[in-house]
Structures are given as C-alpha cells and as structure tokens.
C-alpha cells in the first residue's frame, strides 16, 4: 500500500472560460516517480502546474476542484502560496538558470526564505549540488556565471536550485526534452537517486523515458473538443504491458500521437 502525498479531486482548469483539463482525479504516491504522458495539447503541463499553483500567474486561468497536499487543499484562501511553492519545487522544460553565479542560483531559494548565515548557505549549496550530481563538475567555479555551463549541467543546476528550498515534491515539466541523450541519461539516473527522499512528478512526451524511469504512469488525452482528461493511471509496468483502456494501448503502441 502506497502512501499518498498529492491528490487531485475533480480538478478542472479553464483558460479564458474554456476548459483545458476536466474532472481529473489522481493520487500521487510518496517517494515514487509518477510520469504524466499523452500527446501534445492533452493538458499534461496544465495539470502539473496545478500542483504548485503556477496557474495563478496566468490571469485568464481559473481552477476548480481540489488539490490536496498532505491532506490540505492548497486552493483554499488561507493557504500560503509561497510555502506551497517552497515545499513543491519545479523544474522546467528549458533550463532556466538565473544569469547569476552557480552559487547564487542555488542560494536564491534559501535567501528569499530568510537564510542569511553564510556558512549555512555554503552548506546548502554544496549539499544540493551534490544531490544533483553536479558538485564535482562545478566545485572549483562556484562563482562563475551559470550561463557558462552546458545545457545538461544547467538543468542539473536548476534541479539543485529547486532542492535548496527543501521541498518534498519535485515537479518536472519535460526536463530532458532540450538535452542530448547523454545529458538525458544523467538526469534520469539522478531522478532515480532522488526518489530516496523526494516525490517526483514528471511530464514527458517521451514514452521510453516514462517506461524507463517512472513507477506510476498517468495517461491523458484530449478528445475532439480539445479538453484534456485522465484516461488511465496505474503502475508503469501495467500501463505499458497490459493497459486497460483501448486508447492507452493505441498511444503506447504508437498508433496515434
């Protein structure tokens, strides 16, 4: 029996009054990797961005339903969105390090959450860079601009930066889609490593990647009216070998998408 950390209940998201995803119900197990797959435009990213309220930033977006994090609905007015985002970190499709030093990138989160002590910051930076398997490559150039790193290194830096606020969940929006195969492999190895402490939810349009790294898989699909729905959720092995839904099978076997 898995312990649930995040749960979506009847989640519907509207953009300009039009639903983008509808009635999504999903339970995400703690310290596992859950992959969200599906063709373009099925609302994978929209769903992911509900889990740390990133949709708040889009003025035309409206969210209905509930997202429970540790049993608490994060969409109630008395919830502190800053704390939600600190505890549910996010890594984006394109590496987006700040144009600051490697050190300052990792220290950014702790700093805005009130860590001033230099020694404590040093300790956090080293721990997170080690956790993101980047320490050995950058330990001699911590004060160099992060934009001098390669794409794969930049993405691992972004993971280290997200880890620095001590989150429990990491949301990853196609984190390897702009990287070459070797950098992708490093990110995937890293994800496996991170599940010892963290829960990971990853959006990917790469089915092999979902099959390789995830424990659970969510398949989403948008119909004719372009509203994304959750079609099937289950252990990755089952989804990829014995899907229950015809549409999942069609997608897995490459018949559409």
């Amino acid at each position, binding site marked *: 029996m898995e312990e649930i950390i995040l749960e979506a209940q009847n989640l519907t998201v509207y953009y300009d009054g039009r639903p983008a995803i509808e009635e999504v119900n999903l339970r995400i197990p703690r310290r596992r990797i859950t992959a969200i797959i599906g063709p373009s435009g099925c609302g994978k990213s929209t769903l992911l961005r509900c889990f*740390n309220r*990133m949709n708040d*930033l889009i*003025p035309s977006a409206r969210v209905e339903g509930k997202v429970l994090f540790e049993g608490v609905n994060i969409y109630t007015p008395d919830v502190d969105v*800053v*704390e*939600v*985002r*600190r505890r549910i*970190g*996010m890594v*984006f499709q*394109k590496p*987006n*390090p*700040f*144009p*600051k030093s490697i050190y300052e990138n990792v220290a*950014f*989160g702790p700093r*805005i*959450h009130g860590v001033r002590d230099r020694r404590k910051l040093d300790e956090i930076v080293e721990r997170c860079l080690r956790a993101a398997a980047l320490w050995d490559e950058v330990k001699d150039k911590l004060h160099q601009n992060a*934009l001098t790193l390669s794409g794969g290194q930049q993405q691992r830096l*972004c993971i280290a*930066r*997200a880890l620095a*606020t001590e989150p429990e969940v990491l949301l990853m929006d196609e984190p390897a889609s702009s990287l070459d195969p070797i950098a992708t492999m490093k990110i995937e190895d890293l994800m496996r490593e991170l599940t010892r402490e963290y829960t990971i939810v990853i959006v990917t349009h790469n089915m092999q990647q979902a099959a390789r790294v995830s424990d659970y898989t969510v398949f989403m699909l948008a119909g004719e009216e372009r509203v994304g729905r959750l079609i099937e959720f289950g252990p990755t092995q089952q989804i990829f070998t014995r899907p229950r839904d015809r549409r999942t099978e069609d997608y897995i076997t490459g018949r559409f998408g």
Partner: protein
Amino acid sequence: MELTTRPVALITRARLQRGIAAQWREWGELAIQSLLFFAAMISVFTTIGIVIVLLVEALPFFQQVSLVEFLTDTQWTPLFAQKHFGIAPLLAGTLLTSAVALALAIPVGLLSAIYLSEYAPARVRAIIKPILEILAGIPTVVYGYFALLFVTPLLKRVIPNLETFNALSAGLTMGIMIIPLVSSLSEDALYAVPNSLREAAYALGATRLEVALRVAVPAALSGIVASFILAASRAIGETMIVAIAAGQRPILTLDPRRAIETMTAYIVQVSLGDTPHGTLEFRTIFAVGLVLFLFTLALNMIAIRIIQRYREVYR
C-alpha cells in the same frame, strides 16, 4: 569515371549572356547603393565637421589662455574687463542642474519602468506607456517656460529664499523631461528578461517584489545602467530649460537655490549676444563646446559599451 558537360542548345547559351536589361539593372543597383551610402555618410561627415570646427576654433583660444588656467581658475568672466577663464563655475552649474535632474529622473523613471514591466496589467500598460512617450515629445522650450513660470513660483512657496532664476527649478523640470527616457529604456531592458526566469523564481516561492528586485532588475541591470548614463548625457547637453530658468550668472556654487550658468546656457548667451566673431571672447564658446562634446561623447560611449555587453547575456 569521366565527367563531361552536357552539350547545351545554342538558344539556352544565348539566354545566359548579359544583355542590355541586365546592364541597366546593374547600373540601377550601383546608383541605389551609392545613394544609400551617401545618406549614411551625411551624419558621419557632419560629426567629423563639428569636431574639426570645435578643434580649429578652440585651438587659438588655448594659445592665448593656458589649459591650466582654464581648468583651475575659479572664475569665468570673459565678457568683463577683468577677464578670467576658469571653466569651473560653468562646469559646476552643469553638474548641479544635471545632478538635480538625475536625482528626480532616475528613481522615478526606474520605478515606473518596474511598475510597467512587472506589475501593470496589459491594459494599464497600453495607456501609460504612450503618455510617458508624449512627455518626451514636448519641445524643451515649453519645459523652460514651465520651469520659470510654474515650477519656480511653486517652489518659492516652500523655499523662501529661492532666487527667481535657480538651478533647482531648472533641474527638476529637466528631470521630468528625462523620466520617459529612463523609464522607456529601462522598461525595454526589463521586458527583454525572459519570462522563464520569472517563473523559476516564482516556483521557488518568490513574491512579486522579490521577482522584480532580485531577478528582473539584476538581469536587466546593464540596460538599466545604460539608460541612466544616456539620461546623464541628455541632462548635461540640455540647453533650453537651463538657459530660460537657471540664470546666466557663472558663480562657483553647489547651492541649487541660486542662479547659476551652465556650459550650454553660456554658449547660447554668447551666440545670441553682440560679441564680435573671431575675438577671444567669442572663441570661449568653442572651448566650452569642446568640453561639453567630450563629456557627452564619453558618456555615450560608455552607454554603448554597456548595452553591447547586455545584449550578449541571453544568447
């Protein structure tokens, strides 16, 4: 393997020959190219011409007045019987009015840029931006009278011993004129900061203010600093407002309540006055003009360097 060209029909070969039409086309191209080159060269030649005139006219001045006197004497009285040629009072006047202008324009311009780029809803932005740009289009002579006939009387109510012509009023009005320059250029720099950086900061739990001050502003810093420098260059070169409202009394002071004279206002005074051409008195304006030119040239070059560096950041 042997390679040969396929025999070509005569008619095809004939078509490939340059005919009259092709020659006309080439002449046309050449003519257009020359015209465009000439247009581009006009401003280059003008700039070179100005520098030459400044140097040619300033040189005889410096043969009569030593550079040491010019730079160290604390009085500027070339039009009086007792002649002194120290640039210091004019320089102080220019720096004083510019400092007052920048003290207003930099904070207000930067804050409005941050508001427009980071806070304003698209609709508000669409209204405010054009209004700010209208402010930049008002002729400076209008600003000059605005300073003299509106700002100065207003300030006199608050500051009792304010002189009618004073550096403060001219400086503040100049500041108002420069706000759009600072806000518009700074806003461009802020707007160019990729949204992905803001998202990254929000996802770490940053507030809107933290995103603006710790991510957007630092990422746009070189563009913002460049806008400050261009504003400074504009303030130093501004003529009409200071000529009308700041006075024509070259005294060495940093008290903004007093009447002063800037380098630009002095040049206006002599050019419009009855000082005979070719005299030492008349040549002073070329010496002053040369100093002014060097100042703004240096500032513009620094700004260009900074902007170039900032363009490279996101490549």
